[in-house]
Protein backbone atom coordinates (compact mmCIF):
# COMPACT_ATOMS: atom_id res chain seq x y z
CA UNK A 1 0.00 0.00 0.00
CA UNK A 2 1.38 3.42 -0.83
CA UNK A 3 2.65 4.99 2.36
CA UNK A 4 3.71 8.56 3.16
CA UNK A 5 7.38 7.61 2.66
CA UNK A 6 6.69 6.63 -0.93
CA UNK A 7 5.43 10.10 -1.69
CA UNK A 8 8.30 11.67 0.21
CA UNK A 9 10.78 9.58 -1.75
CA UNK A 10 9.22 10.63 -5.02
CA UNK A 11 9.28 14.30 -4.04
CA UNK A 12 12.92 13.87 -2.91
CA UNK A 13 13.85 12.47 -6.28
CA UNK A 14 12.03 15.25 -8.13
CA UNK A 15 13.67 17.81 -5.85
CA UNK A 16 17.14 16.49 -6.61
CA UNK A 17 16.34 16.47 -10.34
CA UNK A 18 15.48 20.13 -9.92
CA UNK A 19 18.72 20.63 -8.05
CA UNK A 20 20.70 18.98 -10.83
CA UNK A 21 18.93 21.22 -13.26
CA UNK A 22 19.85 24.31 -11.29
CA UNK A 23 23.46 23.28 -11.07
CA UNK A 24 23.78 22.16 -14.65
CA UNK A 25 22.03 24.84 -16.57
CA UNK A 26 23.93 27.84 -17.86
CA UNK A 27 20.92 29.48 -19.38
CA UNK A 28 19.00 31.58 -16.89
CA UNK A 29 15.62 30.59 -18.27
CA UNK A 30 16.37 26.90 -17.88
CA UNK A 31 17.40 27.76 -14.35
CA UNK A 32 13.91 29.05 -13.76
CA UNK A 33 12.47 25.80 -15.02
CA UNK A 34 14.59 23.88 -12.54
CA UNK A 35 13.43 26.04 -9.64
CA UNK A 36 9.86 25.37 -10.72
CA UNK A 37 10.57 21.66 -10.51
CA UNK A 38 11.92 22.01 -7.00
CA UNK A 39 8.85 23.96 -5.92
CA UNK A 40 6.60 21.29 -7.31
CA UNK A 41 8.50 18.61 -5.47
CA UNK A 42 7.89 20.45 -2.23
CA UNK A 43 4.23 20.83 -3.05
CA UNK A 44 3.88 17.10 -3.54
CA UNK A 45 5.52 16.48 -0.19
CA UNK A 46 3.20 19.00 1.48
CA UNK A 47 0.14 17.48 -0.08
CA UNK A 48 1.23 13.98 0.92
CA UNK A 49 1.88 14.95 4.52
CA UNK A 50 -1.39 16.86 4.72
CA UNK A 51 -3.18 13.80 3.37
CA UNK A 52 -1.53 11.27 5.70
CA UNK A 53 -1.85 13.46 8.79
CA UNK A 54 -5.34 14.44 7.88
CA UNK A 55 -4.40 18.09 8.40
CA UNK A 56 -5.21 20.94 6.03
CA UNK A 57 -2.19 23.09 6.91
CA UNK A 58 -0.11 21.16 4.38
CA UNK A 59 -2.40 22.18 1.61
CA UNK A 60 -2.52 25.73 2.85
CA UNK A 61 1.24 25.85 2.54
CA UNK A 62 1.04 24.38 -0.92
CA UNK A 63 -1.40 27.12 -1.95
CA UNK A 64 0.83 29.86 -0.77
CA UNK A 65 3.81 28.26 -2.43
CA UNK A 66 1.96 28.28 -5.71
CA UNK A 67 1.10 31.95 -5.17
CA UNK A 68 4.68 32.78 -4.44
CA UNK A 69 5.94 30.75 -7.37
CA UNK A 70 3.61 32.62 -9.68
CA UNK A 71 4.74 36.05 -8.54
CA UNK A 72 8.34 34.91 -8.55
CA UNK A 73 8.08 33.82 -12.15
CA UNK A 74 6.46 37.12 -13.12
CA UNK A 75 9.14 39.24 -11.58
CA UNK A 76 11.91 36.84 -12.62
CA UNK A 77 10.93 36.98 -16.25
CA UNK A 78 10.69 40.75 -16.08
CA UNK A 79 14.27 40.90 -14.83
CA UNK A 80 15.29 38.40 -17.45
CA UNK A 81 13.95 40.59 -20.17
CA UNK A 82 15.83 43.62 -18.91
CA UNK A 83 18.95 41.49 -18.58
CA UNK A 84 18.56 40.21 -22.05
CA UNK A 85 18.20 43.72 -23.43
CA UNK A 86 21.31 44.85 -21.68
CA UNK A 87 23.59 41.87 -22.26
CA UNK A 88 22.05 40.34 -25.26
CA UNK A 89 22.36 36.87 -23.86
CA UNK A 90 21.08 34.87 -21.00
CA UNK A 91 24.17 32.87 -20.46
CA UNK A 92 25.32 32.92 -16.87
CA UNK A 93 29.01 33.21 -17.66
CA UNK A 94 28.54 36.55 -19.48
CA UNK A 95 26.56 38.01 -16.63
CA UNK A 96 29.46 37.71 -14.14
CA UNK A 97 29.82 41.48 -13.64
CA UNK A 98 29.38 41.43 -9.89
CA UNK A 99 32.92 40.06 -9.46
CA UNK A 100 34.42 39.84 -5.92
Amino acid at each position, binding site marked *: *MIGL*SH*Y*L*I*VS*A*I*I*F*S*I*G*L*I*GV*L*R*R*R*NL*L*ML*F*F*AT*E*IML*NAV*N*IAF*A*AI*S*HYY*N*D*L*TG*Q*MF*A*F*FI*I*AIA*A*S*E*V*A*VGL*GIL*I*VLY*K*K*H*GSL*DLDDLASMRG
Partner: protein
Amino acid sequence: MFENFITSLMTVEGFAFYLFSFLTIGLFSVTVMSKNILYSMTSLAAAMVLVSGFFFLLGADFLGVIQIIVYVGAVIALYAFAMMFFDATRDIKEKNTNSFVVFLLGGMSALVLVLMFAAPIHSNDIQALYPMTEGVGNAQDVGMVLFTKYLVPFEVAAVMLLVAMIAGIILAGKKMNHSITENMEIDNDAKDEIMIQKDKE
Protein backbone atom coordinates in the same frame (compact mmCIF):
# COMPACT_ATOMS: atom_id res chain seq x y z
CA MET B 1 10.17 -5.58 -0.79
CA PHE B 2 9.64 -6.40 -4.44
CA GLU B 3 6.44 -8.44 -4.07
CA ASN B 4 4.51 -5.76 -2.19
CA PHE B 5 5.59 -3.47 -5.03
CA ILE B 6 3.80 -5.84 -7.39
CA THR B 7 0.76 -6.18 -5.19
CA SER B 8 0.40 -2.41 -4.79
CA LEU B 9 0.61 -2.15 -8.58
CA MET B 10 -2.50 -4.24 -8.64
CA THR B 11 -4.50 -1.73 -6.69
CA VAL B 12 -5.83 1.23 -8.68
CA GLU B 13 -4.31 4.06 -6.77
CA GLY B 14 -1.06 2.18 -6.30
CA PHE B 15 -0.78 1.74 -10.02
CA ALA B 16 -1.74 5.38 -10.57
CA PHE B 17 0.87 6.50 -8.06
CA TYR B 18 3.67 4.57 -9.74
CA LEU B 19 2.53 5.64 -13.18
CA PHE B 20 2.40 9.27 -12.21
CA SER B 21 5.68 9.23 -10.33
CA PHE B 22 7.48 7.39 -13.13
CA LEU B 23 6.15 9.83 -15.70
CA THR B 24 6.84 12.97 -13.70
CA ILE B 25 10.39 11.90 -12.93
CA GLY B 26 10.98 11.09 -16.60
CA LEU B 27 9.49 14.35 -17.84
CA PHE B 28 11.28 16.46 -15.28
CA SER B 29 14.60 14.86 -16.18
CA VAL B 30 13.86 15.65 -19.80
CA THR B 31 13.33 19.34 -18.96
CA VAL B 32 16.59 19.32 -17.10
CA MET B 33 18.66 17.40 -19.61
CA SER B 34 17.42 18.46 -23.01
CA LYS B 35 19.44 20.76 -25.29
CA ASN B 36 16.44 22.28 -26.95
CA ILE B 37 14.56 24.81 -24.88
CA LEU B 38 11.25 23.95 -26.54
CA TYR B 39 11.46 20.30 -25.50
CA SER B 40 12.31 21.20 -21.95
CA MET B 41 9.44 23.63 -21.67
CA THR B 42 6.85 21.28 -23.02
CA SER B 43 8.05 18.40 -20.84
CA LEU B 44 7.89 20.80 -17.88
CA ALA B 45 4.25 21.57 -18.67
CA ALA B 46 3.40 17.92 -19.00
CA ALA B 47 5.09 17.02 -15.80
CA MET B 48 3.18 19.73 -13.95
CA VAL B 49 -0.07 18.32 -15.14
CA LEU B 50 0.98 14.94 -13.76
CA VAL B 51 1.89 16.57 -10.46
CA SER B 52 -1.68 17.78 -10.24
CA GLY B 53 -2.52 14.12 -10.73
CA PHE B 54 -0.68 13.39 -7.52
CA PHE B 55 -2.74 16.00 -5.75
CA PHE B 56 -5.93 14.38 -6.89
CA LEU B 57 -4.58 11.03 -5.76
CA LEU B 58 -3.96 12.51 -2.33
CA GLY B 59 -7.45 13.85 -2.07
CA ALA B 60 -6.39 17.47 -2.42
CA ASP B 61 -8.61 18.11 -5.41
CA PHE B 62 -8.82 21.88 -4.97
CA LEU B 63 -5.05 22.00 -4.85
CA GLY B 64 -4.86 19.90 -8.01
CA VAL B 65 -7.16 22.26 -9.83
CA ILE B 66 -5.25 25.28 -8.63
CA GLN B 67 -2.06 23.58 -9.78
CA ILE B 68 -3.37 23.13 -13.23
CA ILE B 69 -4.85 26.59 -13.55
CA VAL B 70 -2.14 28.62 -11.95
CA TYR B 71 0.92 26.65 -12.53
CA VAL B 72 0.40 24.98 -15.78
CA GLY B 73 -1.86 27.65 -17.16
CA ALA B 74 -0.23 30.86 -16.08
CA VAL B 75 3.38 30.02 -15.32
CA ILE B 76 4.01 27.88 -18.35
CA ALA B 77 2.19 30.42 -20.49
CA LEU B 78 4.49 33.09 -19.15
CA TYR B 79 7.45 30.93 -19.98
CA ALA B 80 6.14 30.42 -23.44
CA PHE B 81 5.92 34.17 -23.96
CA ALA B 82 9.33 34.60 -22.46
CA MET B 83 10.78 31.93 -24.73
CA MET B 84 9.31 33.66 -27.69
CA PHE B 85 10.90 36.82 -26.49
CA PHE B 86 14.37 35.25 -26.28
CA ASP B 87 14.26 33.64 -29.78
CA ALA B 88 14.63 30.25 -28.21
CA THR B 89 14.83 28.57 -31.59
CA ARG B 90 18.58 28.67 -31.45
CA ASP B 91 19.93 25.73 -29.61
CA ILE B 92 21.35 26.93 -26.37
CA LYS B 93 25.10 26.42 -26.47
CA GLU B 94 25.90 24.88 -23.15
CA LYS B 95 29.29 25.25 -21.63
CA ASN B 96 28.53 22.25 -19.59
CA THR B 97 30.13 22.56 -16.24
CA ASN B 98 32.02 19.54 -15.13
CA SER B 99 29.02 17.38 -14.90
CA PHE B 100 30.76 15.16 -12.44
CA VAL B 101 30.37 17.87 -9.75
CA VAL B 102 26.75 18.44 -10.65
CA PHE B 103 25.76 14.82 -10.62
CA LEU B 104 27.79 14.18 -7.53
CA LEU B 105 25.98 16.94 -5.65
CA GLY B 106 22.55 16.13 -7.02
CA GLY B 107 23.03 12.43 -6.48
CA MET B 108 24.37 12.91 -2.95
CA SER B 109 21.45 15.13 -1.91
CA ALA B 110 18.99 12.72 -3.48
CA LEU B 111 20.57 9.80 -1.70
CA VAL B 112 20.55 11.55 1.68
CA LEU B 113 16.96 12.77 1.29
CA VAL B 114 15.74 9.42 0.19
CA LEU B 115 17.45 7.71 3.08
CA MET B 116 16.01 10.22 5.49
CA PHE B 117 12.49 9.82 4.19
CA ALA B 118 12.80 6.11 3.83
CA ALA B 119 13.47 5.76 7.48
CA PRO B 120 10.28 4.76 9.35
CA ILE B 121 8.63 7.94 10.46
CA HIS B 122 8.17 7.50 14.16
CA SER B 123 5.95 10.39 14.66
CA ASN B 124 4.52 10.45 18.06
CA ASP B 125 0.97 11.64 18.21
CA ILE B 126 1.23 14.79 16.05
CA GLN B 127 -2.32 15.96 16.23
CA ALA B 128 -3.58 17.90 13.32
CA LEU B 129 -3.96 21.62 13.68
CA TYR B 130 -6.88 21.91 11.33
CA PRO B 131 -8.33 18.41 10.93
CA MET B 132 -10.10 17.61 7.67
CA THR B 133 -13.78 17.09 8.34
CA GLU B 134 -15.18 13.95 6.75
CA GLY B 135 -18.09 13.92 4.39
CA VAL B 136 -17.49 17.38 3.07
CA GLY B 137 -15.70 18.26 -0.12
CA ASN B 138 -12.04 19.18 0.04
CA ALA B 139 -12.69 22.56 -1.57
CA GLN B 140 -15.24 23.49 1.11
CA ASP B 141 -12.83 22.34 3.79
CA VAL B 142 -10.01 24.36 2.32
CA GLY B 143 -12.25 27.36 1.88
CA MET B 144 -13.37 27.20 5.51
CA VAL B 145 -9.77 27.17 6.80
CA LEU B 146 -8.40 29.57 4.23
CA PHE B 147 -10.86 32.32 4.94
CA THR B 148 -10.87 32.00 8.71
CA LYS B 149 -7.45 31.12 10.00
CA TYR B 150 -5.34 32.04 6.99
CA LEU B 151 -7.19 35.17 5.99
CA VAL B 152 -4.33 37.56 6.62
CA PRO B 153 -1.73 35.48 4.70
CA PHE B 154 -4.29 35.17 1.91
CA GLU B 155 -4.67 38.96 1.65
CA VAL B 156 -0.95 39.38 1.82
CA ALA B 157 -0.55 36.86 -0.98
CA ALA B 158 -3.05 38.85 -2.98
CA VAL B 159 -1.09 42.04 -2.52
CA MET B 160 2.11 40.20 -3.39
CA LEU B 161 0.63 38.96 -6.63
CA LEU B 162 -0.48 42.47 -7.46
CA VAL B 163 3.01 43.79 -6.83
CA ALA B 164 4.50 41.02 -8.92
CA MET B 165 2.17 41.83 -11.73
CA ILE B 166 3.02 45.52 -11.73
CA ALA B 167 6.74 44.70 -11.45
CA GLY B 168 6.50 42.30 -14.38
CA ILE B 169 4.79 44.88 -16.50
CA ILE B 170 7.21 47.67 -15.73
CA LEU B 171 10.33 45.55 -16.13
CA ALA B 172 9.23 44.05 -19.36
CA GLY B 173 7.46 47.14 -20.63
CA LYS B 174 10.45 49.46 -20.85
CA LYS B 175 11.37 50.43 -24.41
CA MET B 176 8.67 48.15 -25.78
CA ASN B 177 8.57 50.25 -28.96
CA HIS B 178 11.62 48.68 -30.57
CA SER B 179 12.29 45.04 -30.96
CA ILE B 180 15.56 43.57 -29.86
CA THR B 181 15.80 40.74 -32.27
CA GLU B 182 15.68 42.88 -35.47
CA ASN B 183 18.66 45.13 -34.94
CA MET B 184 20.58 42.67 -32.88
CA GLU B 185 23.71 43.46 -34.89
CA ILE B 186 24.12 47.07 -33.57
CA ASP B 187 25.95 47.11 -30.36
CA ASN B 188 23.56 47.60 -27.45
CA ASP B 189 25.26 50.73 -26.12
CA ALA B 190 25.16 52.30 -29.56
CA LYS B 191 21.43 51.69 -29.50
CA ASP B 192 21.09 53.55 -26.25
CA GLU B 193 22.92 56.59 -27.72
CA ILE B 194 20.63 56.58 -30.67
CA MET B 195 17.66 56.41 -28.38
CA ILE B 196 18.97 59.30 -26.32
CA GLN B 197 19.46 61.51 -29.40
CA LYS B 198 16.01 60.58 -30.52
CA ASP B 199 14.47 61.62 -27.26
CA LYS B 200 16.39 64.93 -27.41
CA GLU B 201 15.09 65.97 -30.87
